[in-house]
């Protein structure tokens, strides 16, 4: 490490880095994107394998016989649901009791910050019903959960029917070592949130729930079931949870193993795996699957009822029955056997699932990309920011004094830039205040907006957010007079902004790689090229196109395209508006962090860069 302590060699190195800065940055960006695309290429990925010993070698035999009876129960449940117009709580309690479970109910209520137009709800009141199958002779220390949401429309009856059928079958078995909780939750995620908060006696989101009277100890794993038809063609595994959290990979492996064993067609992201990885279409299928996972994970919302368990360190996944036009059919008995097998293996667990990966991407169910493989893709993008920061630092140091011999000039750049350090405070503070306004005002000012404009509450919230977002672009003109003190002040500001962005994105990528990577894809080029000396109009257009808001819009279109449900521009725009409102609701209801991250940190950071563009 004489390299850094020797002034000559250090100068040579910095010269090299500053001279070749732009080409290196471009190379890094391309390498990052190429690396990411390469992740889906099958020879580069690893085959999934079961790491947990307790689940790997043990043999279980599935004998669940009562698929037809479960469907009868499902129809009965549907009839009772239609008759009462809501969840038939009394019927469920009675049915569960007759199956020998210990049954409890829990009521909850929640007022949404603004009406949810997608699901048409504002004041939510509901009841969760759950029955506990006590493991014989065991202390109530561990539990597994099987849940099925009870939706207001006619779907998902089969899931409740199968849940009750499995409860009856499980009750007469003697091998259970963990309590099994069968939960039917009303109002999907809101009910699940109420139940989980009551189970762990926490209140994170300000919901009103009644305390639970029966518990089963610490929950080890949970499965959520969604079935809407009597026969399914395939089962889809949903893993993405709140804030991009994923369950342990062993849970996915377990599902895949039993699908193989029961000969059930299984998918992830509703995409079938293809065997021809070396063909273009096979590769593109893998890329699409992985891209869908990245987009879903980046959204930070729970994509199934399982998503809320992950906060409590409970490994969980949603199994969704798909009934498409394929020829291949699977009946309910087989699905029941799959669940029986999974529960028996989970019952064998001695420890929580922890052996396998928690951070991964899945290009298909049988292949995975671990954190060690995908992080370099982000690293290549992040290193651009550091290179630009180094370049700026060298420029700042070189400007005031030409003589530089290691020690003497250290104090000089700081001295000369100290006035500009104060001057850059103003844009930084103003940007963050705009961010804070974007975070707080839309929900607070909805009543005011509804009074003055002919819009609904939800539209008012979304449009206020967009208005504040756009108004933020006008800010640089207001801060001109402060910045006139130092000609080179923008360099200091940009140095701060670039380092700030690097820290933000790295932290985000550590928690939620997908979100960090998507943001880095658009924000890093902006941060790298912007200076006050580039052509104003063209750069302004490019910057707006690469802003966080537009990134969200592209993601909406890309998501629809990947799901093979492309939308027109108008529909896409409407979808974009609803995604914004959903993001805010997710934050208020479940504590998703994407909206505050974007509003309070990423957007202000982008505004600082925007400020640099209009620096005088």
């Amino acid at each position: 490490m004489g390299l850094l302590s020797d002034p000559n060699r250090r100068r040579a190195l910095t010269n090299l880095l500053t001279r070749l800065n732009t080409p290196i940055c471009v190379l890094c960006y391309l390498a990052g994107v190429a690396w990411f695309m390469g992740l889906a290429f099958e020879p580069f990925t690893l085959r999934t394998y079961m790491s947990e010993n307790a689940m790997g070698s043990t043999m279980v035999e599935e004998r669940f016989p009562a698929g037809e009876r479960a469907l009868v129960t499902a129809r009965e449940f549907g009839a009772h649901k239609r008759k009462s117009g809501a969840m038939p709580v009394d019927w469920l309690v009675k049915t569960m009791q007759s199956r020998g479970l210990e049954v409890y109910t829990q009521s909850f209520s929640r007022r949404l910050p603004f009406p949810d137009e997608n699901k048409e709800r504002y004041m939510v009141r509901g009841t969760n019903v759950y029955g506990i199958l006590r493991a014989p002779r065991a202390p109530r220390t561990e539990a597994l959960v099987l849940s099925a949401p009870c939706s207001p429309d006619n779907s998902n009856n089969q899931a409740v029917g199968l849940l009750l059928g499995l409860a009856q079958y499980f009750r007469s078995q003697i091998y259970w070592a963990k309590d099994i909780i069968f939960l039917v939750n009303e109002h999907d995620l809101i009910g699940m949130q109420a139940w989980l908060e009551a189970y762990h006696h926490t209140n994170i989101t300000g919901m009103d729930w009644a305390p639970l009277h029966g518990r089963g100890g610490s929950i080890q794993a949970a499965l959520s079931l969604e079935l809407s038809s009597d026969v399914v063609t395939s089962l889809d595994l949903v893993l993405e949870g709140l804030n991009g959290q994923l369950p342990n990979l062993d849970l996915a492996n377990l599902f895949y193993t039993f699908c193989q064993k029961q000969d059930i067609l299984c998918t992830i992201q509703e995409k079938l795996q293809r065997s021809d990885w070396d063909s273009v279409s096979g590769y593109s299928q893998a890329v699409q699957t992985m891209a869908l996972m990245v987009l879903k994970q980046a959204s930070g919302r729970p994509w199934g009822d399982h998503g809320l368990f992950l906060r409590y360190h409970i490994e969980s996944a949603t199994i969704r029955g798909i009934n498409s036009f394929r020829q291949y059919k699977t009946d309910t008995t087989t699905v029941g056997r799959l669940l029986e097998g999974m529960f028996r293996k989970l019952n064998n667990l001695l420890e929580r699932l922890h052996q396998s990966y928690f951070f991964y991407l899945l290009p298909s169910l049988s292949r995975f990309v671990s954190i060690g493989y995908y992080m370099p893709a982000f690293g290549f993008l992040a290193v651009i920011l550091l290179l630009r920061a180094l370049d700026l630092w060298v420029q700042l140091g070189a400007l005031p004094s030409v003589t530089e011999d290691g020690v003497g000039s250290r104090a000089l750049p700081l001295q000369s830039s100290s006035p500009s350090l104060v001057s850059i405070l103003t844009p930084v503070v103003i940007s963050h205040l705009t961010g804070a306004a974007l975070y707080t005002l839309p929900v607070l000012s909805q009543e005011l907006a509804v009074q003055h404009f002919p819009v609904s509450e939800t539209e008012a919230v979304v449009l206020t957010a967009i208005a504040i977002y756009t108004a933020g672009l006008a800010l640089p003109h207001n801060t001109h007079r402060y910045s006139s003190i130092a000609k080179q002040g923008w360099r200091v500001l940009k140095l701060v902004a670039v380092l700030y962005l690097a820290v933000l994105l790295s932290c985000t990528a550590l928690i939620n790689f997908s979100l960090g990577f998507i943001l880095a894809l658009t924000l890093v080029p902006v941060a790298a090229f912007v200076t006050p000396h580039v052509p104003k109009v063209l750069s302004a257009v490019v910057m707006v196109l690469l802003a966080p808001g537009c990134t969200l819009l592209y993601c909406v279109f890309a998501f629809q395209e990947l799901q093979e449900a492309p939308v027109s521009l108008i529909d896409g725009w409407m979808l974009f508006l609803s995604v914004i409102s959903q993001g805010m609701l997710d934050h208020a209801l479940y504590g998703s962090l994407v909206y505050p991250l974007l509003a309070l940190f990423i957007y202000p950071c982008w505004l600082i860069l925007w400020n640099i563009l209009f620096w005088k």
Partner: protein
Amino acid sequence: MPTLTLASARSPFRDEFAEELAIRPLHSGDIHASFQFRTVWGVDLLQATDPRFLRYAILPREIVCTENLTPWKKLLPCGSKAGLAVLLKSEKLFHSSYFSQAVHIRPVCQGMHCTVPSWEMRQTLNVVFDLYTSGQGKREWSMFKIKIYVDVTDSPQGELFELSPPTPLLSQAVVLGDRRTYSVYDLTDPGTFGKVRSLNLLVRWKADNGDMLRPLLHGERYVAGFGLQTGEIHTLIYNNHPYRAFPVLLLETVPWYLRLYIHTLTVTSKNRENKPSYIHYQPSKDRLRPHLLEMLVQLPPNSVTEVTVQFERALLKWTEYPPDPNHGFYVGSSVLSALVPSLVAMDTNITQEHPLFSSFFLCKEESSYFMRVYTEPLLVNLPTPDFSMPYNVICLTCTVVAVGYGSFYNLLTRTFQVEEPSQSLAKRLANVIRRWRGVPQL
């Protein structure tokens, strides 16, 4: 070991043995069987109990199983060769939904003046046979060749269920403050068997599933909160008595690796603070002794009392983790001890069956009874390192130390000096000569 004799050949005030089986059909359709064995021997083992030698210990992780049953059976005078113990077949007992076995040893008095010191050993075994797993969902059951008390309190006239063959022998006893009626089938009486020399006892249910009866006092416990830093232990104590309040002694032992914050201890019942009349707290010492918390709490009638205390999870040394650290760490059950008001005293219908005066002279034993309830143990996850990581960590740390710290240290401690241009050979020679001569150098 003194000689033991069977109950049939008992000698008064000397060694004796008695056994009985009480069966109670539960409302849910399950069957509760309680085996009681009592061995008394007249020997002076120990005169007094010194409280300093009292110890309390729990193994929350252990589950009772066959290996506990075998030595337990060997404590019986005839092992499992004779008497009721013949019935204790482990493959049947462990196909039940509840199983508990206990050994109590205490000094007892025999005779009025306690002249004969003797010791009593009671062995109890309680099993609840599950309706669903053992009876295939059928609620009827029958039994063959044993001596039994069948609890018929809930169905004195056979409304709920019917016993066959009927027995004229009825016995009343106050069990846990509840007056219960038993049909007795005494196997020592040949009349019980009738002509066929065998007894096939059968219970036939008439009514449907009844409601579950909740005991007067019961407790439950859970860990609240999420994450691996802090948490909260909630203990719920239920008093289901409609109008009597009674005190309960709560004893909690919590391992030292959960650091209790005693200042956060709250006791609430009916949404109001319930100040315990007595608190004894012995703080833990790391790796030496657990927290001991003892409280006397008054339970208001028909209420739930919630005791909460927050804790922080300690980080153990890496050798202190068990082989399965991700399973979690057990916290032993807390013990609720109380004198519970009797149900007999609670019965308002008492005037109908009994003479009026009997309610004026309630005998003391019936007005309350002692009860000890154990809550469920807890399973708490502690922050656990990834044990496959040490190798990676060692590699990483070494690299970081070697590369990062080394060069940084080098940079910090290096003194920069202005280096003099190298001297010519003639000058150096001259200096050598000058040093030798002792004059200042050039």
